């Protein structure tokens, strides 16, 4: 099985060579297998993927709420509470790793996580394959795409291909990047300037405005000490590598659609975006932004909200 090839980030034609913007627009066209996208979408909404048939991927990654559930911690089967804030599924294909701690290399690799986690969907491949095999629809749909029928790797592939289609281009800011000077307001543009100048874009850069590096949470201050109640999830990438240097290190999240994905951070500790901007500038940048600066940065962040169109639809 070959990995889905994603479009490389391309600098828009409007860019001048001397000023290299840290942020790049999302691609507008994708080339995916339509049948797999359709099957993946069905699976994405399939509650049979959970042990008690109550939870689907879409339960925690609802498109109407920015690809998240807007909960501090997601609710798994039988009302169990998760340990970490659910990240958005939108544009996740452009994250260099999956999960807050980056323990999966790609979308294919991350699916075992939620499906098998006892407090999330609490199922197993054996169970899932068994359930899907009982459905004539799935037998036909898989049979049409995969010669070997319903198998774990095929389910993963279909879902991953579908998730690759969950891209939100045409954000106002992207249109600006592509040369439309009137796409964003002066305030939003000012917010962007502050975003860059105070150092946000040191980490939140690239096509996904983040999502392509790890960073310690609390570079300029001890966030966890100040917050209190440390959890295992707070260890971040340390849980993966067991390297002390990775303590409190997380994947820098994408800021695309950030206005829609409250609450914020891995612990969902912040409900509003301006607060998140303040926390970030304090613990990551060692800065105290003025109220106005925060307001402008939030305006800029809001301009990163894109549009989701189902694959194949105009």
């Amino acid at each position: 099985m070959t990995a889905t090839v994603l479009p490389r980030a391309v600098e828009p034609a409007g860019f001048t060579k001397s000023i290299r913007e840290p942020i790049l627009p999302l691609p507008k066209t994708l080339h995916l297998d339509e049948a797999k996208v359709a099957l993946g979408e069905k699976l994405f909404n399939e509650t049979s993927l959970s042990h008690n048939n109550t939870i689907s991927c879409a339960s925690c990654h609802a498109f109407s709420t920015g690809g998240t559930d807007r909960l501090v911690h997601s609710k798994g089967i039988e009302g169990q509470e998760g340990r970490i804030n659910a990240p958005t599924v939108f544009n996740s294909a452009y994250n260099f790793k999956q999960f807050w701690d980056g323990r999966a290399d790609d979308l294919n690799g991350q699916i075992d996580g939620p499906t098998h986690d006892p407090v999330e969907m609490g199922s197993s491949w054996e169970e899932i394959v068994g359930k899907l095999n009982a459905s004539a629809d799935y037998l036909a749909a898989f049979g049409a795409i995969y010669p070997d029928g319903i198998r774990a790797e095929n389910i993963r592939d279909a879902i991953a291909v579908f998730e690759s289609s969950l891209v939100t281009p045409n954000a106002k800011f992207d249109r600006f990047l592509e040369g439309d000077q009137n796409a964003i307001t002066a305030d939003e543009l000012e917010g962007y300037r502050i975003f860059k100048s105070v150092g946000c874009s040191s980490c939140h850069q690239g096509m996904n405005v983040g999502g392509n590096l790890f960073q310690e949470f609390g570079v300029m201050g001890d966030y966890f000490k100040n917050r209190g109640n440390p959890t295992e999830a707070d260890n971040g990438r340390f849980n993966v590598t067991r390297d002390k240097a990775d303590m409190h290190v997380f994947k820098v999240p994408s800021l695309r659609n950030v206005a829609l994905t409250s609450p914020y951070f891995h612990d969902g500790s912040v409900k509003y975006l301006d607060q998140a901007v303040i926390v970030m500038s304090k613990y990551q940048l060692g800065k105290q932004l003025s109220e106005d600066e925060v307001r402008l940065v939030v305006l800029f962040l809001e301009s990163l909200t894109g549009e989701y169109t189902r694959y194949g639809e105009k």
Partner: protein
Amino acid sequence: MKTRIKQLSIGLGMIGLLTFLFIHTNSIDPSAHDSYRNNLHRMKDLDATIDREILKSRYGLTSNYDSLMSDLQELLNLRQYADDIPYFVQPDGRGEISGQIENYYQLASSKEKLIELFKSRNAVMNNSLRYFPVSASRVAAKMFQDDGASVEAQSLNEVLRETLIFYVHADQRTADQILQRINKLKQFEHDHPSSANLDELDITLRHATNILKYKPELDDLIEQIVSVPTRAAGTDLINNYDLKYNEAVSRANYYRLSLYLFSILLLVYAGYFVVKQQKTKGELNRANENLEQRVDERTAELVLSNETLTVEIKERKRMEAALSGARAFLHAVIDNVPNLIFVKDTEGRFVLANQAIADLLGTTSQAMIGMSSDDFGNFLGEDGNNDDIEILQNFDEKFIPEEKYTDQNGTSRWFQTVKRSLAMEDQGERFLIGVSTDLTERKLMEGQLRNAQKLESIGQLAAGIAHEINTPTQYVGDNTRFVRDAFGDFSSILGKYGILLESARSGSVTQTEIIDLKGEIEEADLEFLLEEVPKAIEHSLDGVSRIAKIVQSMKDFAHPGSTDKKVADLNRAIESTVTVAHNEWRYVAELETHFDRNLPLVPCFLGEFNQVILNMVINAAHAISDVVGDGSNGKGKITISTTKVSDLWAEVRVGDTGGGIPLEAQSKIFDPFFTTKEVGRGTGQGLAISHTVVVEKHNGELTFETTPGAGTTFIIRIPLARDPAAT
């Protein structure tokens, strides 16, 4: 045989070897090689690009990590292609390359880790580097202004300046100096806890510390990243792969060479055979000559046998022609036989028919084949029901002595048919053969014969009849002559009476006249005449009557008959016949007739019936004459009686007092030409014809009762009714 197997094994071995060499010659797939080598080079290129991207990120030439991460991702993804080592690399080479790939990706993985750390540190570094100068300047100004801490402000500015210098050219001495100043500034924080600028100063110092900390770390990271020997490992991998590839190529070349050599060897071997063949050509020639000679001989034989064959063929043709001729001959014979010949198969279909039957049926013998008798309406030899199957199954034979058949033209003809089954063993089939003989002519002949016999009888009878007629004729003549003489006397007397009458009327009767008359009467013996003349006339009439009766009997007997039966009085017929035959029996026998006066008229062919009675009477007379001789010593007796025995039958019995019929002759007496009489006395046809007439023509019965030494009675029974079955 063994040599054969050996040759076959060698042949198969050679083919196997050639195949082996050929496959190995073509073992290198250029496209697989190209694709694999391109991937290896791509890995190397990506590795170099990643290094470049790192440096660009480090020195701010790029402000995002997308390109870097894309390249890194691609590099890591390439592993699956790298692991797919082309098959033409030998197993040990594959193991080697596999190890190298594993090594390469371990290096790549450690490089990835360094890159992750680099990105994190670089982000913080960039942030601090960007913010520290602004922050430091501002805090320094505020401290100077708010706290009057000119020394500390000065010191902070120094930290700023030195940190920037450190950033450009990091060395430990500068770092130590900066750390000293930072510690002094922290002392200030400690000494001035109320200062409003403490927080900002603290953050500013943290940025400075970050720069101090991360600048060397970043330099070190870059150094480490760049020094990860991926490049060397990649180069080694490519070189080693090239080596293995070249080995594979030279191996293929070696096989190619081997193939050539083997081919040359084969050519030489073939050449050797050619030479050997050349050498043996002499022998071959000799053998060839020998062979030619043998061929000639064989050809001669063949020519001979060909001639024989030709002769045989000619003979065969001749035989075929003969056979065909024989067949035609046979057909001609069958067709020329006047009898009707037909052959049917078990299904009742004609398989053979001759011209005669075809003519009768108004068709051709060819057209009849395959048809059945049903196709012709009525058919010969079937009497209304076809019993062919029975005949075939039981190997029966059926004989139909006589049957009437009306042909196409409505002419009635008579046939006699014999049918019998014929089993053709070689054909495993049975056939029904039928032969019909046309009796019509014979019938005609028989009629004629019967007529002739009648004539013969009449001839025989003629003498007797002449005698019968002669006797009355004689005395009729005598009496007539007597009457004529008497009439002369009567005329003389009557003349005298006339004279006397004249004399009497004149009254002058003279005695003379009376005496003359008297003399005349006495001379003529008038009294005798008047007595005898009526008798003579009476006898003459009787004689004439007798003659008339004989003539009438003859007429009756010689009645030519008709084709149809007519009712007749048998009694009268018998009487006539007896009369006609009078002269035949009168000398040897008395004849009595006992006629049943109540016998009704009987339908019969009268002429033929008369013939039968005549035959019976003559036979009876002959039988009696055999016993009584000429009759001078007593006569025999013939008794003829008629009786109506029932409502159905009229019976005529003709009995004689002859010698009877000897036992040995009893069964043959109705056979034609059977006779016990001496030559000239009978034709032997009498009883045979009688039998035919009674039995066949009248559907009657003809039997006899005989007692040797005592006599024979023939019994003729004729049906009283017009028999509907009678034809």
